[in-house]
């Protein structure tokens, strides 16, 4: 389990995890420790979201910090209709999008987002990495390529992709968050995914020997034999992220 997922299940009193709602109520009454617990639960997850959109560590940290300050300031307005994290990520997302608007850098021009049907055969690519794709993330080369591919997406395409893949937001929720139509969201997501596929295509079609080893786990076995350590040892380098349940 990665740190972000672990922090979401931290217990504050060493027994049953305290419900977010209780923590919010306590924080609304002025209990700073309760708010700190909420911070500890969600700061990394909020950071992953901000970093995914902004692609800059310091900017993402600034946005997360501002988001928690803002969340506390308006805590009395949180009525508990959604989870605390749902409310927090909206704040993070709004601040991240504002940040992009204020510090707009040159990005690739987007295709006309309302006209997918006019693009002929530019469809999804029926190609996947063989083996265990989660293991691909231990490969530095593929992580560098994912980084680069995310960098090359337009702001809007990246924001939609991150919201969908990291938070599992519905098209409708994303449309609300980005103040645009559901059709625009679908189009952005489609282009973002296809562009990611294109940028990773050579790795998929012609994986390096090391990537093949990582995907199949052969590298682990040979290294384990060499080092005389168990093959399932989860050293930081080999730790693949756990799939997050939505």
């Amino acid at each position, binding site marked *: 389990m990665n740190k972000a997922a672990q922090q979401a299940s931290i217990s504050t009193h060493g027994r049953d995890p305290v419900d977010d709602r209780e923590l919010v109520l306590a924080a*609304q009454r002025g209990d700073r420790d309760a708010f700190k617990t909420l911070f500890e639960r969600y700061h990394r997850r909020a*950071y992953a979201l901000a970093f995914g959109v902004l692609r800059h560590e310091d900017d993402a940290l600034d946005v997360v910090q501002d988001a928690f300050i803002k969340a*506390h300031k308006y805590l009395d307005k949180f009525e508990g209709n959604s989870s605390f994290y749902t409310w927090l990520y909206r704040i993070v997302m709004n601040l991240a999008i504002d940040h992009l608007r204020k510090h707009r850098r040159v990005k690739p021009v987007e295709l006309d987002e309302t006209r997918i049907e006019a693009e002929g055969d530019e*469809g999804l690519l*029926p190609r996947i990495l063989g083996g265990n794709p989660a293991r691909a993330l231990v490969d530095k080369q593929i992580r560098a390529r994912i980084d680069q591919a995310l960098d090359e997406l337009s702001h809007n395409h990246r924001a939609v992709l991150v919201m969908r893949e990291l938070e599992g937001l519905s098209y409708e929720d994303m449309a609300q968050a980005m103040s645009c139509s559901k059709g625009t969201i679908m189009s952005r997501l489609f282009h973002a995914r296809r562009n990611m596929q294109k940028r990773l295509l050579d790795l998929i079609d012609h994986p390096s020997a090391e990537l093949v080893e990582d995907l199949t786990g052969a590298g682990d076995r040979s290294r384990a034999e060499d080092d005389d350590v168990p093959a399932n040892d989860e050293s930081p380098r080999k730790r693949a992220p756990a799939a997050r349940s939505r």
Partner: protein
Amino acid sequence: MSAKSDLELMEHADGELDDADVAARIERDPEARAKVDAVKQIGELVRGHLELSADAVHDARFAAMWRRVDDQLVAPATGLWSRISGWIDRYRGHVITGAVSAGAVAALALVLRPSAPDIGVRTRGGGPIQVREVALRATPEIDSLDTPGGSSTVINLDDEDGHTTVIWVTPEDTVEGI
């Protein structure tokens, strides 16, 4: 296969489209199935990559962040004045609307009051003039007129006795800043 039909595959993969035809297509067409798998795989790669990126940030940076957040936390309002301020802050829009409405009613009452004593005022030349309130027959007409010295303002006032009063404000009459 068109991008538009692939869009349906993507919607299906995201759980946004529950369509029997699309499901059947995925069932019988290996390429459609591979595209759905590819959409899911891109998702796994992006999610896993961002989670690992978040894990790579040192705990000390978040600890420092908490200290900065904690410094800026504002204690919740507990005193009477704080609660009143909080109430005004929350319902600022209603308060302003109410205040404007009350002001408008007061102004109307002032204009429509039955009678008022004559008021003596002085012109800039020093001579006293008598001013009395009159009821207007129509809304005053205000025109702008370009004159050699600049732009003048002409105000036409028709009272209920059929008299028309013209007030001409020339550039010389205009006090800077007003």
